[in-house]
């Protein structure tokens, strides 16, 4: 079995990791052709205007492949367009839920987020054809006007493996996906062409998701009112890190839920306990601030609510395995 553990969000790097793990020579190209020893097929990657990354694969592997994408802090999403001919049994895992698919054509569009750990176990001989689009929450926010649409997205993601089969690929999806595969290298407007196709895929996925949400109501463990409350609780938490966060008791009052329910449902929806989530988000914010080069370590510590910089340094080091000072030094 070949095991891929992915802990970053760089598709170019992913391609290189693939090459190394599979023992294929790699020369910084944006594609990889699988040699017979490994299987048959091609993998391509490209990125668009520093905002979107796209991964294309059309391959059959000789060995079982297990890929794991662990949950991480900087929020990002992957929109998958899977078109698999499954022989034997393929396993999808989202956090603690598992879904198996046996001997069938799996042809769906689905969104995953790094709030949860995602795994795919693909048996040998399965024809894997897929396009994956990776974007961060900033892009999604800017692009979808996410503030008002966030609840829909969170509800969808909280379905975990149940969300996998919601959206089937139809002719319109296939048409756009083929365009991504078939772009001519010499087209002077290649990037805009690719970006427009990706945007249309994202648009189609979300328009159809929004329409279907009502039909899906029965599936949600968390009801609509609670979703709104949880999203509100999350927004209160990450609103301003320079102030002390509200206690759980206070937060539960602010969103009119009992503290126990809030704690349980928050974890269900966002993948982390309230405090762990808060901590991750503010350290992530710190990382962004340091990367701008405008804040030194002390200022950054203050901006995210640490009065004692050494506590901040310890927490930062524990989380990112690097000292904040080293990061500030880079820029």
């Amino acid at each position, binding site marked *: 079995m070949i095991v891929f553990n992915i802990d970053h969000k760089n598709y170019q790097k992913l391609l290189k990791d693939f090459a190394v793990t599979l023992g294929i020579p790699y020369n910084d190209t944006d594609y990889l052709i699988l040699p017979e020893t490994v299987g048959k097929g091609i993998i391509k990657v490209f990125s668009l*205007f520093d905002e979107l990354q796209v991964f294309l694969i059309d391959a059959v592997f000789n060995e079982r492949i297990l890929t794991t994408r662990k949950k991480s802090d900087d929020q990002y999403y992957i929109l998958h367009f899977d078109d698999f001919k499954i022989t034997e049994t393929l396993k999808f895992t989202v956090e603690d839920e598992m879904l198996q698919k046996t001997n069938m054509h799996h042809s769906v569009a689905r969104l995953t987020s790094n709030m949860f750990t995602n795994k795919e176990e693909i048996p040998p001989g399965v024809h894997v054809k897929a396009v994956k689009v990776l974007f961060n929450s900033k892009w999604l926010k800017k692009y979808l006007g996410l503030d008002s*649409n966030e609840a829909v997205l969170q509800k969808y993601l909280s379905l975990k493996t149940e969300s996998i089969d919601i959206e089937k690929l139809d002719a319109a999806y296939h048409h756009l996906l083929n365009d991504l595969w078939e772009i001519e290298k010499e087209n*002077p*407007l290649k990037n*805009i062409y690719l970006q*427009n196709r990706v945007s249309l895929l*994202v*648009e189609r996925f979300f328009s159809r998701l929004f329409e279907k949400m009502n039909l899906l109501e029965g599936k949600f463990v968390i009801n609509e009112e609670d979703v709104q409350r949880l999203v509100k609780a999350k927004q209160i938490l990450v609103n301003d890190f320079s102030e002390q966060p509200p206690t759980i008791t206070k937060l539960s009052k602010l969103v009119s839920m009992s503290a126990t329910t809030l704690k349980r449902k928050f974890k269900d929806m966002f993948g982390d306990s309230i405090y762990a989530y808060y901590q991750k988000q503010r350290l992530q914010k710190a990382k962004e601030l340091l990367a701008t080069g405008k804040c030194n370590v002390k200022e950054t510590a203050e901006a995210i609510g640490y009065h004692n910089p050494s506590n901040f340094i310890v927490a930062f080091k524990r989380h990112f395995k690097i000292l904040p000072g080293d990061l500030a030094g880079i820029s």
Partner: protein
Amino acid sequence: MLYLSYTHTDYYSFLADFAKSVGTTLTTEGSFDFPPNFAKGYNKVLTLPNGLQAIIIDAVLNDDFCITRNKSADEFYALRFDEFHINEKMTIKFDKEHIHKSENSRSAVMLTSSLFDYGFILKKGSVVKGINVLMTKEWLAKYLGISSNDKVIQKYLALKTASINLEPFDTQYRQLFNTILEEEKKDNPLKTVIIQNRIMLLIERFFTRLYKKMETKIFRKTLSDEEIQRLMNTEAKLVKDFSLAPPTIPQLAKKAVMSETKLKTLFKKVYGSSIYEYYQKNRMIRARYLLESRKYSVKEVGMMLNFKNLSNFTIAFKKEFGILPSNLQEELKK
């Protein structure tokens, strides 16, 4: 007469001034309704997430209207999609060149640059529908990889008034254009995305075709301005109203003051398909749009598009899209 003269390189402040000049103000959404003495309709500025600005106008003029954009040293470009119904005549100004149009419709796609003066005069009673997209030099470079000294763009811009009729406003443009105007009126949570994507497709199509024309060397026009204008009128008549039988070719030829053979040949040259094929294709696109709106049955759509026989409609639809209208409806219900 309403005069408006401006040098803005920002659509938001341009529209704010425009609103002021007709005695009103912009709403927080960036739009204003014309006071009835000037026009019936609205004007709206959109700032898209990718940094583009666009103006949408949809109005019937109740007064004569003269608008001039003065050239400026700040380099930026405006891609204009206009669908006007002209009352009496229209004057278009390009630097010192003036041309007059007296046809009753003007559907055009054109790129203008801030390095030239540009403007137009329209008479009371004219219908103005348009989408203008503002692109900075930097935006063009980043997203389209086009530098402003790009040969294709320079050559195109140097044509000035001659560029006006270079790019026909055809089915695909019209489809995107109409979706934007219709979406604008809706209250869809993904409205911005849908509009942005359609605007990007308009841009993609314009530049793709511009480059292609350059490659195949048909950049130099083989038709006269007059001929192109007559073809545009023919096209507009053809797709105007699908609830009535289409005009016959002899009727169209008569209106276009051309022989039937000449009209047929030139139409195909400019729009890529024969007159009847073009009519049918647009009719089917309209059918699909109506079905996708989920407001009408297959039978109703057939009737709205002047099919006396429903099976002719289903056959024609299947021929165009490879799917029966009833199957499309089922697909949509899934």
